[in-house]
């Protein structure tokens, strides 16, 4: 029952249940608001008391400036008075300057630098007192009171360093508040007879107390503790207007005396403003508080903040504007950072931007979710511009070159490219490799590529310095050690371009045989020799060589491996098109009748292809059938667990599986499709199968799946230690490094600069370990588990 506002009889009426509930809720809200007001008022009163006290303390601190006394030695006065400094002889003036710098360093706890600065002052110098004082000072700053006393006890009590030492040492006393000062100079002298540190006159006692308050009692810390307890306007807020206003005042008052505390609280405020989705409060915070050294105006922070809402055009534009302003205005003018650091930051921003623009790799086979959702177009011009800017800003940015190479190679993987489309990409790749080699002259990777590319284009002289460098280097990479072999092989292939040079080729092949790397099969050599015979028009000799090769190797003539090796050798040795045609026929026939190919033939071919892959000697026609054959082999192996397990230690099986991993096991770019047996013993713990999986994953760069393979890095490192084959010994370590590098960069990625977040808008999904829009089995399972957890 309630009385209506007019209070009349008719006003008396029965309240319904829901009205009573509403009324109760309102009463509760009123009560809460009143309580909060009381708390704020109380806290305000307390803060005002503390603030008044603190204002007096700050005034005292502001009055604290060194002042000379009558008869004070000029060398001491010069330490704080420029006019007196100018009157000193140059040697003394230099020593005074050193003392000034050392005091600054000692006050910042940079002990070694401080002592180093005054090391030149000799014992006979009138400034040696300062050297002694500084020795005690660095000990005092490190809370080593006894060591400080030991140094200071020899100081002249009538000079400034001696007096400073008395104030400093007494500031450590817990009973300082109850200590009384010596009233007269004589009393002070009498006390000094007991101990130098008892020579405490009134000014020194005052200074000791002030110092104790500034350094040990830390009023500002107490005020900050009370301030941060101020309730925010709503319990949903991490940082409200009231707290922002309080911190602004606090920062103004204490920035001078407690710079680190103020900076730390400002960083917390910015972090809290960042963590909530109220852009008005975020803007207030970034305007009010200074950011860290590299981002004083919080432009980078604003970029990250607005980047979270990238589905929205307005916030996307705000985010881009903030980053552009940071990169073009703020960063170049930031003198708090060294010039190399400024350039390195710019380079990394350009690289991150390029990576954010790059779509995941185009699929080899299978379906690509990204392309279905967003189409295959990407802004190649913008991507190139960002990659180039990254390399220009910091020419030693290895990651920038690697990512650029990776991007171009992903384009070159497209089988549908014609020669005119392919050539500019290869030229671009060559430019990147040249820049890489110049920017990081100790890297073998670009040089290895350049040797192949330059010899392919008959630029022998341009290739020579790289070959010489590689041959002389002590790189662990077995491919580098194999350079003398490869040089001869490539030179033989180059000479085959002109028939008149054919005579020079057999001796070169003999030399290549002598330098053949131990880790690489020689199966290809007789085919190369046969190809030279064919190129030279010696058809009978060629036939004899083929027959002999088949007999010696046990491969049937025109079987898959035999046909592919011959076609590859003939193409590399520039056999004319008319002679190539019959060599293509058995390969084309095999591809047409994939179903009928015996698995043994596929395994044998896989073994040969793996060698060509790792020696980086794939022939041009490989693009037409390599992928198809790899998919067929993998489909067969995926359904033949027994065969895999039976031959799990067979090097031929290893080569075949590793070759399939080069083709990402026939998976698309989004999800690595592996049979169940891959995650069971003994396959799961076999070094070659682990290496193959990591190799495939790194080619896909699927963040979700790679994340789960972090244990593979230490596993591969351990496997490398016991591996006998020099190639695998090196390659396992390299895979482990690449995997760790990827995981590191991925763990740093967060939402900013991340292509996934830009495409999906990850603002609310940051703590999910699955993609809410993805329908792959892993994400589906993780999503179901998450939903079940949320319901429970």
């Amino acid at each position, binding site marked *: 029952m309630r009385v209506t506002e007019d209070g009349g009889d008719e006003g008396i009426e029965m309240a319904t249940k829901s009205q009573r509930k509403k009324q109760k809720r309102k009463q509760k809200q009123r009560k809460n608001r009143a309580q909060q007001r009381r708390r704020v008022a109380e806290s305000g009163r307390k803060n005002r008391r503390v603030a008044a006290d603190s204002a007096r303390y700050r005034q005292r*601190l502001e009055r*604290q400036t*060194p*002042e*000379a*006394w009558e008869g*004070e030695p000029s060398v001491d*006065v010069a*330490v*704080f008075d420029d006019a007196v400094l100018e009157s000193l002889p140059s040697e003394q003036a230099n020593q005074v300057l050193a003392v*000034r710098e050392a005091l*600054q360093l000692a*006050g910042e*706890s*940079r002990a070694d630098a401080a002592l180093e600065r005054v090391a030149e002052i000799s014992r006979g110098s009138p400034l040696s007192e300062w050297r002694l004082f500084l020795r005690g000072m660095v000990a005092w*700053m490190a809370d080593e009171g006894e060591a400080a006393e030991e140094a200071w006890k020899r100081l002249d009590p009538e000079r400034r*360093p001696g*007096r400073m030492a008395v104030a*400093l040492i007494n500031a450590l006393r817990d009973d300082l508040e109850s200590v009384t000062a010596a009233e007269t100079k004589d009393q002070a002298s009498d006390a000094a007879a007991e101990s130098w540190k008892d020579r405490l*006159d009134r*000014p020194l006692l005052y*200074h000791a107390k002030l*110092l104790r308050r*500034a350094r040990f009692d830390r009023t500002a*810390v107490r005020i*900050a503790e009370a301030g*941060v307890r101020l309730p925010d306007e709503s319990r949903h807020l991490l940082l409200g207007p009231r707290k922002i206003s309080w911190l602004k005042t606090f920062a103004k008052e204490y920035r001078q005396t*407690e*710079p680190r*505390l103020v900076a*730390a*609280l400002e960083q*917390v405020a*910015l*972090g809290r403003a*960042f*963590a909530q989705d109220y852009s008005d409060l975020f803007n207030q915070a970034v305007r009010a508080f200074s950011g*860290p*050294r590299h*981002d004083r105006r919080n432009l*980078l*922070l604003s970029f*990250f903040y607005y980047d979270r809402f990238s589905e929205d055009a307005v916030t996307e534009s705000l985010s881009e504007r903030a980053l552009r302003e940071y990169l073009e205005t703020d960063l170049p003018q930031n003198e708090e950072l*060294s010039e*190399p*650091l400024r*350039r*390195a930051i710019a*380079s*990394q921003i350009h690289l*991150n931007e390029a990576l954010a623009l790059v779509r995941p790799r185009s699929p080899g086979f299978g379906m690509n979710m990204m392309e279905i959702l967003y189409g295959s177009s990407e802004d190649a011009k913008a991507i190139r511009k960002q990659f180039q800017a990254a390399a220009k800003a*910091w020419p030693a940015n290895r990651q920038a070159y690697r990512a650029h190479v990776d991007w171009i190679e992903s384009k070159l993987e497209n089988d549908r490219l014609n020669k005119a489309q392919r050539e500019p990409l290869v030229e671009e790749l060559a430019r990147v490799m040249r820049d890489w080699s110049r920017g990081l002259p100790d890297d073998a990777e670009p040089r290895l590529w350049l040797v192949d590319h330059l010899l392919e284009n008959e630029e022998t002289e341009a290739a020579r310095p790289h070959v010489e460098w590689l041959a002389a280097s002590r790189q662990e990479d077995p491919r580098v050690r194999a350079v003398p072999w490869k040089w001869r092989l490539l030179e033989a292939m180059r000479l085959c371009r002109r028939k008149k040079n054919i005579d020079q080729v057999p001796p070169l092949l003999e030399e290549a045989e002598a330098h053949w790397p131990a880790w690489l099969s020689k199966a290809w050599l007789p085919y190369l020799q046969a190809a030279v015979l064919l190129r030279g028009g010696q058809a009978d000799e060629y036939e004899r060589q083929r027959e002999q090769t088949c007999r010696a190797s046990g491969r049937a003539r025109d079987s898959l491996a035999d046909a592919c090796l011959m076609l590859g050798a003939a193409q590399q040795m520039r056999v004319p098109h008319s002679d190539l045609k019959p060599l293509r026929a058995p390969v084309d026939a095999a591809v047409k009748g994939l179903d009928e190919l015996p698995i043994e033939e596929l395994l044998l071919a896989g073994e040969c292809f793996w060698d060509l892959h790792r020696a980086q000697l794939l022939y041009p026609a490989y693009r037409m059938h390599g992928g198809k054959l790899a998919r067929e082999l993998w489909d067969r192996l995926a359904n033949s667990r027994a065969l895999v397990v039976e031959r799990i230690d067979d090097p031929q099986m290893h080569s075949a599986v590793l070759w399939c991993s080069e083709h990402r096991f026939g998976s698309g770019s989004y999800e690595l499709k592996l049979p169940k047996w891959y995650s069971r013993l003994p396959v799961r713990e076999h070094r070659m199968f682990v290496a193959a999986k990591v190799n495939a994953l790194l080619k896909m760069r699927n963040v979700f799946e790679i994340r789960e393979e972090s244990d593979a890095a230490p596993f591969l490192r351990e496997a490398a230690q016991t591996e006998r084959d020099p190639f695998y010994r090196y390659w396992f370590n390299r895979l482990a490094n690449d995997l760790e590098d990827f*995981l*590191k960069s991925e*763990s*740093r990625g967060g*939402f*900013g*600069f991340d292509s996934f977040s830009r495409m999906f808008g990850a603002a609310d999904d*940051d703590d999910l370990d699955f993609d809410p829009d993805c329908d792959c089995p892993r994400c589906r399972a993780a999503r179901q588990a998450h939903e079940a957890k949320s319901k429970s």
Partner: protein
Amino acid sequence: MTTTNQSDPFQILGVPADAGEAEIRARYLELVKKFPPEREPEKFREVHAAYEAARDPLLIARRLLEPPAEEPPQWSQAIEEQRQIRPPLTPAFLLSLGNRAPEHRASVDASG
């Protein structure tokens, strides 16, 4: 990611990601004193390698460009950390500790 933390030179040295060259060097010298090569050769090697890495501008740049943590930072933690770090002392304040009472001050007026 444990692998990241174990090889993080800033974490090994115990300095923030935006630490300046001087701060990194000071901390390095402190650690070298604590772990001299003759007594703690392994730890010294780790510290030295971290020092070399932490001076690489590109590595520093990568750290600085990491987006802020998603978890909101806590006021109490920052205050507690700051409580352990004493504020620096400026030379002017330090030098003023040796001042005598006002009556002893050197006269600066024209009468000398």
